[in-house]
């Protein structure tokens, strides 16, 4: 009871089946089910953690830009471009969070401070270190988005009952398909950032292994926390 009454407006499945391209849509009487509690919980988690993640990425690039723009003006266009894409991602998830009435991560100020600090620190360490940091972060994020995509693809079917025949054909609702496309598009952009970083001499950072593994560990820990808190 508590769970169901939590939100009046909560993302549920499409009320009517998506009948794009079907001619006999008007005659079909399809009753769509709602997303289950577990599916809603997972959707909330996805939006919360992705919002926190993009916030982190935004602030990391912000810090790197601030630290490096003075010494290496040649890097400004690349960093600016990647930063702007992250801002776009961040705004997307901010809007999703508001629309779907998802609780944002409680530790948002911590992520802000941490990410900014990481960006500035790696920026001050030099171009290679900054690129290695980007590489590490984008690697973790790529895997993370892939995992989310897997769950979104496999486990978000809702019951679609044809009221005349009583036949139930579980389908993935349109919103979830859109979400899949979104996550997939963002994952591709993040991996593009990864490639850019590697291109710009990320492997030249010293100490490479320590830096990348420490940043990956921190990212994974932050992701785990943001998913829950």
């Amino acid at each position, binding site marked *: 009871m508590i*769970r169901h009454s939590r939100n009046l407006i909560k993302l549920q499945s499409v009320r009517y089946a998506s009948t794009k391209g079907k001619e006999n849509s008007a005659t079909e009487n399809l009753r769509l089910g709602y997303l289950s509690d*577990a599916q809603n*919980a997972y959707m*909330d988690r996805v939006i919360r953690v992705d919002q926190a993640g993009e916030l982190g990425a935004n602030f990391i690039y912000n810090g790197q830009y601030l630290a490096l723009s003075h010494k290496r003006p040649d890097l400004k266009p690349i960093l600016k471009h990647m930063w702007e894409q992250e801002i776009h991602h961040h705004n997307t998830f901010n809007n999703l969070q508001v629309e779907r009435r998802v609780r944002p991560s409680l530790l948002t100020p911590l992520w802000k401070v941490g990410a900014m600090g990481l960006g500035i620190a790696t920026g001050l360490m030099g171009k290679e270190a900054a690129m290695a940091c980007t590489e590490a972060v984008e690697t973790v994020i790529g895997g993370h988005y892939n995992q989310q995509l897997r*769950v979104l693809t*496999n486990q978000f079917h809702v019951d679609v009952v044809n009221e005349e025949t009583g036949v139930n054909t579980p389908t993935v609702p349109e919103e979830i398909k859109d979400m899949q496309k979104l996550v997939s598009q963002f994952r591709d952009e993040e991996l593009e950032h990864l490639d850019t970083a590697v291109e710009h001499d990320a492997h030249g950072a010293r100490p490479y292994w320590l830096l990348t593994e420490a940043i990956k560990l921190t990212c994974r820990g932050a992701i785990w926390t943001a*998913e*829950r808190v």
Partner: protein
Amino acid sequence: MLIVQQFQKRSFIIPSLISSGLSYLSKDIRLADKMEDGELHFPKTEFEKSQNTSRPLFQRPEPNYPGHVPLYNFEKLLMFLGSSIGAFVNPTNNNFIVSLGESTAFPWVLNRLRTQMLNDPSGRQILKERPHMTSKSLNLDELKNYPDNSLGKSYFLWLEREGVSPDTRVPVKYITDPELAFVFQRYRECHDFYHTITGLPIVREGEIALKLFEFMNLGIPMTGLGALFAPIPIKSSQRRRLLSVYYPWAVKNGTICKPLINVYWEKIMKKDIDVLRSELGIEKPPDMRELRKKARSKKKQVA
């Protein structure tokens, strides 16, 4: 304003945070974790749909392989308790050791062994072919004609010396997964070969030393338990010899030698045993029967 002063200040923030936050979030977290692990809403494959896994209560699950006796967890626990006490008190009764081995062969242990086998070419071959050792499959009659110092001849001589046969191995009954049951069966059947290659006899002392060797190499809990507790009730002279000579040998060799579960014994019967030992990284320990004979004769001289 009077009314405002009258109403109490209640401590509201902390209790609300605690009570609403924790219990409120935990259900969501659990559900989302389950979704991530693929336990909920995962569409069933055709195969899974065809499996009829629902069973009325109080009915034992089906056996997974011939000879399988599915046990409930409490039964496994009881078996462990009984066999551990029994093996400690009466180690000569094979049933106790067999049951102890199977009740402590946890899936993660056997999984680790199976992964070890999968990572090795001959281990993979063993898993694929699933050979079962009997006196017929090992061709015991031909083994006596093998060249001296070959593995086959040594094995044959050892069998004769100790007076045992490979047919007396008890089949595995209580392990759930068929492949893991085979892995454990393979371990049981290769036990004699471990005796051969180390030269340890089947007296109590030799078995204990070999148990530690196996534990260091294979990691099976029963062997570890045996190495830990079995020296307690034996003679102090034997225990001294064990702890000073054979345990250090077992620890050293068990750790550094190659995983013995991967060795396809049936196919290397003609190999020279010393060459095999050097390939595997095993040093032969002092002959236990000799040491025991010497100790016995020394005692007789003193007495």
